């Protein structure tokens, strides 16, 4: 049975989530805490945490630290708690390795269903976040995709499908999925339009998250090594 580590400093929110996760069912709450240090201590002690739910703004630091620590263990699900799913926070969490986010607005009363859904295939991806991801991909050197026209059914022979740009971390199909979502279409609609199943769409979204996280880690590593080279100091390999 999956165990959940909850990191949230706002007491009412934490209590609400604790209440949801301690009722009968799966997954179950393993531990709830309100600071980065506590969470890191829990994780480093190797205590159970198959799923980590964390807020970003914590009193003694950023939830990103918790995310990075938690991601060291493969197969662990890390999710960000957000009020709006606002892009800047969610994106930094994704780049830190988070696999998605949960909204605190009470629309996820059946949090377990959401967690199952996340476990089985990807996070919800809002159009705004999708558009931000596309913009980021576009800004990468040598990429010329046009997301607003790229979203077309695959079986339409006359349609021009945007090729995946060289250097882009995403495959063509992932970009198609992202483009559809960016326009406000649901997973089902995207799946129908692309002639694939909804689950495949979820898988793609999941891969997009993973790739972006890995990609951002590679970028950071590259940047770090470049600076080390400039200073004549050893690289990290």
């Amino acid at each position, binding site marked *: 049975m999956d165990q959940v580590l909850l990191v949230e400093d706002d007491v009412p929110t934490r209590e609400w989530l604790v209440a949801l996760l301690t009722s009968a069912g799966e997954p179950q709450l393993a531990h709830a805490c309100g600071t980065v240090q506590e969470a890191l201590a829990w994780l480093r002690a190797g205590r159970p945490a198959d799923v980590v739910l964390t807020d970003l703004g914590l009193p003694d630091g950023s939830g990103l630290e918790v995310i990075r620590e938690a991601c060291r263990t493969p197969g662990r699900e890390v999710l960000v708690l957000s009020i709006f799913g606002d892009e800047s926070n969610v994106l930094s969490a994704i780049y830190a390795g988070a696999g998605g986010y949960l909204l605190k607005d009470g629309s996820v009363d059946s949090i377990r269903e959401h967690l199952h859904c996340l476990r089985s295939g990807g996070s919800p991806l*809002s*159009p705004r976040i999708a*558009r931000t991801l596309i913009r980021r991909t576009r800004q990468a050197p040598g990429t010329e995709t046009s997301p607003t026209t790229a979203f077309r059914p695959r079986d339409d022979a006359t349609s021009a499908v945007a090729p995946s740009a060289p250097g882009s971390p995403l495959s063509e199909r992932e970009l198609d999925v992202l483009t559809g979502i960016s326009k406000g*279409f649901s997973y089902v609609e995207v799946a129908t339009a692309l002639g694939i199943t909804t689950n495949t769409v979820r898988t793609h979204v999941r891969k997009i998250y993973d790739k972006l996280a890995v990609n951002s880690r590679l970028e950071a590593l590259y940047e770090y090594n470049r600076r080390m080279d400039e200073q004549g100091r050893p690289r990290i390999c």
Partner: protein
Amino acid sequence: MALLACFVAVISFILWVRLGDHREVTAAPAIELRETASAEVGRSYPASPPHAETLRPVRLPDNWDGSRPDYSGYVWYRAELPNAVHGWQRPTVYLPVAAMNGEVWIDTARVGGAGRMTFPLSRHFYTPQLIEIPRALIRADATQSLWVLVAGHPGYRSGLAPVWIGEHDALYPAWRERRFWQTEGNAATIVINLTLAVFVLLIGWRDRAHGAYVWFGFAAVVWALRNLNYWVTHPVIPDLLFAELCVSGAAWFVALFGIFAMRFSEEYQPGYVGPRWFLPAALGYAVVATGYFLHASDYARANAGFLVLAAIGVGITVWGLVRLVRLAIARPTGELVAVACGALTYLLLLLNDYQVGINRSSQGEIFMRQYAALPLFVAITITLARRYMEALQRTRDLASSLQSEVATQRAQLEQSFAQLREAEREQARSQERTRVMGDLHDGLGMHLATALRQSRSAAHTDRLLTETLQDCMDELRIAVDSLDEHERDPLSLLGTLRYRMAPRFESLGMRLDWQVADNLGEPPALDPSAALNLLRLVQEALSNALKHSGASVVTLSLSRPPAGVRVAIADNGCGFDPATVAHGHGIGQMRSRAARLGAVIDWQRTADGMVLSLTLPQVPVTH
């Protein structure tokens, strides 16, 4: 002070020349011959001296204008060759003045002379002659005659000054000195005058700020040309014409210099204005004098009017010079005092020369005016040069101060531009703050107030409160969306709105379809205020459909008609008549939002239900 000392020196020198010992040759051995016998022999060049009985005694100097006023032709003057001549190594005759021309004979033999002795005569009236007598012509056994043959015409101070005879070396210094002052020095003044004139004219011509000096430049040119009178012995034009042009030149000089003195005073002396009639009067005088002299058919006739015209000329000159002196008194600067001293010197010698000119009994004076003019002209030119240099310096100063001024101005301009931009940004921020605050107050604030009221009400229901709070959340999201810098085009705004609202439709068993036309492209971005109006309007329409239509499917679509962007919300519900529908549906509010967007809004009943269509202008309206 240096200038002043200069003038004193010049005056002293001239006075010494004029008033000093009149005995021209001071060395020995030399004899001055004053007592002669003379005879007029007519206008044909004589082959030999006349007989002794035709001679009558004449005392030198002999000025023909006084002694034989209308005579034109040759006159012989005879003196006995002194015995001392036998003892001299190089017996020589010195003729200070033999006008118009003269030559020396011993008995019947011509010894020498200068230029042409036949009419028209060469102009050697101002050329001293030093003629050595060949020893072969001197005989020990007899009394010999020394003849001077003079050719002349009336009206030009023809005649003969006292003749000197003596040892060559005794006479030479006197001849040399006279020759220097009358010929070479004269030529030098002409060159200097012309140089000054060219300089002054160039500056005065190029810069009209120095206009007065143009008059002076012309005067100096005329003066230089006019002084050729004393230097040119063989003019290329007819002799009479040349002579009369020289006399006319004097008149022109007088007129031009008088005008200069007036203009110069006007420039330098504040408040002084010369008489208006002076300029035409002076020029008129010059024209009349020129006409008169050029019209004269011979020297005699020309000379008849000389006295009157010369007197007027002296009058004009005196007026001008006195004007310069009064200017120096009014403004006693070094330069102007120097000009005044030059003027006084000039005046003194002008009067002297005038007196010489009208004296019909004397001969052999040196005219000093051309020399006296030099200090005056130089002083005047110095004032111009000073002005010119000052103007140049001012221009340079101005240029450099302008440059720094421009730099300062540019810096100030840049600063005020920066301030302006900052003010504009501040204003934009302030407007945005005002808009956001107003929006939070009217939207979120109102909903929160409602929620508060509902929660306090005894009859409140959770469902109602939840709905109100949901509205609060929607309001807040819309406000946040409208501020996003990247997400303000209709596709992004409505895509996100649809994404948020779809679950609510689903939870009520309804469907919110979303259609985006293929030709949509990238619609233009709206400003935050327009974005908010669009979101509110569509949200209101969707809420209405959700709450009141009773439809099972609501379709939100975005398309691109030929002009603008069209948003349509269609439902398959019961429909309503927008003209009669209650205000609670927010129809009025939607209309006013559409107006603020510059969009056309309209409702249509269809077979299935209702279609609301909103057509946004091509160019988004900004507020």
